[in-house]
Every structure is written in structure tokens, then in C-alpha cells.
């Protein structure tokens, strides 16, 4: 069997690592903890940079491997035997196209405005301990769901929408946008006590340094009673046609 060139092996290792950082983290975290938590692009860049450095370090450890690493490049540029037309053409294309491509990249970089500081990503935060053991004390009766519906349309629908799709009248003003309860990625992955926390404490109840300063979710503690909040939660699940994670 012919040995795979070092350059190709190194490139493959890099592609695999990059692919994992960019696309692999989300499914893995989803399988492990139930919610997908993809890496932000800045971390993907940092980790793949570190991977590239590690690969180069490995390659340069042995002189022979180092030379082998560059051999395809050297062979491409040097003619130890008379070159074929295809090789000549490919070499000319690379040498001619590379400088303008680099120029275009530099132009795009220089004329693009800087990106605003990004808030840490994530919709689902860890449930605070004091809510871990909280349970919905009310039964899922038609009356409770109905009362929840009345409270929902009065208090929540202007942002979360009368169709529970996160498309209320004021939804487009907020960042992050109000949750779409019909999306399988929101309340269907969560439990009633998690919603209870989010409704009771609203934006200011989120961890410091996350998005607590810009979440438009009000604090309902002191405005709605605990029973009213539970009824709203039961209505949201019922009307959106999804079930709490634990009750599935």
C-alpha cells in the first residue's frame, strides 16, 4: 500500500477537527445534555488555529517528516522531468490567481465595518438550584388550561403571539426575539419548573453577564401569583401542541 503523503494527512486531520468544532459540537451536546450548544464562531476560529499549530508542531518534530510535508508543493513547482501540459497549466493558474485573490481578501477585510460586541450565545440557561425541586402543584384540567389561556392572552400574547409562535405585535422589536413555543427547540425540550423560573424572574433573573440586560421578558413575580403562572404554563404547552420534556 502506498503511503498517504504527510501534507494530505495533515490537511485531513485539520478538516476533521475543524468540522467537529464547527458542526459536531451541537449534535454531541444535544445527545449528552439534551440541548444543542454550538460553539460561537470566535471560539471555532481559536480552536482551529490551535489545532493547526499542533499539527504543524507534530510535522516539524522529525526532519524527514518535515521534508515529506513540503514534498508535494516542491514537486508541483519544480520540474525534475519535462512537465505535462496539464501541470504547466495548473501551475500558471495558481501563480496568476493567488495574488489577486489575496488582494480581494485584503480589500474586503479593510472595507468591512467592525462587528459589534456579541452577547454570549444560548437560549437555555442552567436552571437555578432553588427551582430544581419545584413542581407544578396544579392538575392539568380543562379549567386550569382555560384560565391560563385568559391570562396568556392578556399578558403574554402581545410578544409571544396569539398563535404561540413568537410572532406577537411587538416581537420584532426585541433581541432576543420572544420564544416560539411551537418550535420543538423551545418549551418542548424544557420542563414546567424551567418555564416557572423564566416567567417569575424574567430577564433580570438570567445569569449575570449573559443577556439579562437586553431580555425584554418582564419579571412577573409580584404581578402574577404562582398558581396563575402554572396555569399559563399549562396553557402554553397545550395550545402549542407540545409536551414538557419529562412528561413525554
Amino acid at each position, binding site marked *: 500500500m502506498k503511503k498517504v503523503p504527510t501534507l494530505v494527512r495533515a490537511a485531513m486531520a485539520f478538516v476533521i477537527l475543524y468540522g467537529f468544532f464547527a458542526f459536531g459540537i451541537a449534535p454531541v451536546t444535544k445527545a449528552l445534555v439534551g440541548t444543542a450548544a454550538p460553539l460561537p464562531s470566535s471560539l471555532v476560529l481559536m480552536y482551529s488555529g490551535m489545532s493547526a499549530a499542533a499539527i504543524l508542531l507534530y510535522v516539524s518534530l522529525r526532519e524527514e517528516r518535515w521534508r515529506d510535508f513540503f514534498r508535494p508543493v516542491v514537486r508541483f513547482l519544480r520540474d525534475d522531468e519535462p512537465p505535462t501540459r496539464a501541470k504547466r497549466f495548473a501551475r500558471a493558474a495558481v501563480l496568476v490567481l493567488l495574488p489577486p485573490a489575496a488582494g480581494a*481578501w485584503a480589500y474586503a477585510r479593510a472595507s468591512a465595518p467592525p462587528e459589534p460586541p456579541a452577547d454570549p450565545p444560548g437560549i437555555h440557561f442552567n436552571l437555578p438550584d432553588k427551582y430544581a425541586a419545584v413542581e407544578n402543584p396544579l392538575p392539568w384540567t380543562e379549567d386550569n388550561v382555560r384560565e391560563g389561556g385568559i391570562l396568556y392572552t392578556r399578558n403574554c400574547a402581545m410578544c409571544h403571539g396569539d398563535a404561540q409562535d413568537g410572532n406577537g*405585535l411587538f416581537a*420584532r422589536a426585541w433581541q432576543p426575539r420572544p420564544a416560539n413555543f411551537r418550535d420543538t427547540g423551545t418549551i418542548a425540550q424544557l420542563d414546567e419548573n424551567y418555564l416557572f423560573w423564566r416567567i417569575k424572574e424574567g430577564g433580570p433573573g438570567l445569569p449575570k453577564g449573559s443577556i439579562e440586560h437586553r431580555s425584554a421578558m418582564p419579571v412577573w413575580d409580584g404581578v402574577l401569583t404562582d398558581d396563575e403562572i402554572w396555569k399559563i404554563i399549562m396553557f402554553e404547552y397545550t395550545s402549542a401542541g407540545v409536551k414538557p420534556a419529562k412528561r413525554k
Partner: protein
Amino acid sequence: MILALAIALAQSESAGRDTYLRRCAWCHGDTGRGDGASAAGMFPRPRDFVRADYRIRSTPHGRLPTDEDLARAIEKGLPGTPMPAWEKILSRDEIAQLVRYLKSLSPRFADERPTPIAVPSGPGSAERGRELYRKARCTLCHGDAGRGDGGIATTLYYEWGLSPPARNLTRGWTFKGGHDPRDLYLRITGGLNGTPMGPYADLLTDRERWDLAHYVASLDVEPSETTEDFVVTATYIDGEVPSGHDAPEWGKTRPITIPLGAQVIRDAPIRWWSPTAGSVTLRALWNGREIAFLVEWGDPTGRGYADSAFLQFPAEAGTKPYLLHGDEDESVLRWHWQSDLAPVEPMGFSVHPFWKEGRRHVVFRRSASGTPGFRPDEFIPLLVSVRDGSNGERGDRRALTTWIYVRPEPRKTFNPWLEALACFLGVVLLQVWILKKVRS
């Protein structure tokens, strides 16, 4: 046979009733009187299906809507109102059953046969329509520029005793029945039942109404989707930053329009569901020493009411205070303009307000140093809120944006083409060096 048909009809009606109670009754009420649990805080109010005075119809004034009219309102929803589009949630059958159920709520549907108005085809002339817009006195309510600021706009009322603002025609995305010329032709011809907007079927010819519909469609100039990149770039200019809203310098910067939400965050003294303004347009200019913001928003009533605009920033650089007022740990500072007050505190900024044809323009101007300090390429958090006094907006009754950013643009000292050239030459030299090394 007839019996089977009657049973099938009754079943479909009861299925419609089930869907109605599950999805619609919250706002429209269990009996369809438009008095559901959440109706009180809503504007416009949910439709009363028993009175059946439907606004959005393809039929003449005072008539009932067709089945297609009702189905369209359910499928597509009513833009600019809380009525959502149900087409992705309810099946066609469910919507058809709902239509049948809604019709069963008013006995009128049993006797009357609504027939749709024929809509002309072919091109309409917005140019001729412009003449008709004045001649037919549309300006009295809708204003000269169509911003709902006509001379009698504040005296309008309709049968519920609510005073409906005349429609701002520059915001097509808030038209309940759509904003293409066909929809507008139907509204002009048949009017809106139960409102001051009467039918023009007898006052203008078919052709004139078709031309007018094209003119009204051409007034729809406000962007329907507000931009998602919430960054106001303060463009660098040489010379003085302007104080006037109409200074030519404003043409040098790109305006961005940002959606406003109602103040639903604080409960005390009251949450607010019905702000006048739906979006705000922002521009910023600076010259390294001074910065100016031009804030514009729709406000149909110009005089006689205490209108306000606030620009607010974190009180301390690098902090991220809570929306609206911050909290105990991290507070905000505000630049406040109010139409009937001189600036409350000497904040070191100047304000230059202007109102015309249903649109407020306020320029805030201040030194770029101080708190907050504006420096090139630094992102400063900014939150904008406005109050319309004629709509009873005071205190926290207002419309606001989320936290956005303002970024003062650096003075352009280099040309991106120079960087491109440097990179190009660098790569050429590198190639030559590598080739030499490889071939030696």
C-alpha cells in the same frame, strides 16, 4: 339525502365551534361579541361577529363579506394588529369550518348574498391619482403626505366611541387588508364599515378610484421589515456637525429604521400596549469633536401635546444596564427632549426639534467627549424611546427599542485599495522567493 346534508352541515358547524373556542374566543369572546378576556387592552378591538360590521371586505359599503374575505383574514391575519396568520396552524378544512361558524353568529348571513366588487384591470395612473387625492379631500384625514395627520384627524370617532387615528398611508405593512392597488381599490370603493372611512363608489368613477388606489400604493414608503443589524454608524464628516434636521450633511450617512416595542417590561404604574410609533429612523454624524443624532418617527399630532424622545446610554462605560431604566447596580443616563419643556437638566447637549406632515424630527447634538465618550470604532450601547402625548403616553407609557449600538466611524486615513495592492504585491514577492528557493 337532505337530512344527511343537514347533519353534515351541523357537524361541520360544531367542529368550527370547537376550533373557535380553542383558538379565537380568547379575544373575540365565547359568544363572538368581540369581548374576549384580552379584548379590553386591544386596539383595534377584536371584531364583533354578532354585529357583523366587517371592515375588510371585497363587497360594497354596509354589506357582509364573502366567504373568501373571511378565510383570507384568518389565513393571512390582519397586519398591524394582534390577529395572527393561522394558515400554518389550522388546516384548510378547519378554516372553512370556522368561516361557516362565524357566519352562523349573525342572522344576516342567512338572507344576504354578498357579491364582490369588480376590480378594474390594466394600468392605473398614480400621477392622476395624486390630483384626485386632493380633489376627493383625502388630505382632510390622511394629511398631505399621507401620514394620517390631516386637519380633522383628531376629531374622528366611530360607533364604539373610540377615536381611530386616520391610517398613516406611508406604512403599508400596517394596512389590515393589504396594500397593493387591488386591496386599496376595494377599501376606497367599499369603505370600512363602521368607521369614518366611507365608500367612494358614488363620488369617483371606477377609473378615478383605480388611479387613486395606485397613488395611495405609491405613498407606502416606510420599510416594512426593519433592519436586523442594530448598529447606527456615526459617519465622519469634515467641518461642523449640523443642528438642523434638513442639513445636507445628513445625506452623507445611511439611515437605519429600527422597530419599536411597547413598554411591556415594567408593571408599575402600567404596562403599555398601544404606542403610536411603530419604528424610529436614526442617523448620526460626527467630526471627532462633536456628534449629532437625527431621530425621526411618525407622530400624527404635532402641536398641543407633550411629546418626548429619549436617547439613553450606560452611565458608566463598559456596563450593560437593564432595558429602560437600568437597575441599582448599573444605571443609565438620558438625553431627553420634551416638546413643552426646556431640557430639564443642563446635560451639555442641545436639541433641535421639528415637526411636519405627521413626522417628528429631533436633532440631539453634543461634544463627543464626556460621558458617554465617543471614540472611533467603539461600540456604545444606545436605547431610543419616544412618547406621543396625544395618545396619553406619559412616564413609562412609551415605545422603545432594545439595546442597539452606535459606532463612530474613524476618519478615513487610508484607502482599502491601497491595502489590496500591498497584499497583492506581497504575495507576488513571496511566490518569486519560493520559486527561486524550490528551483535552486
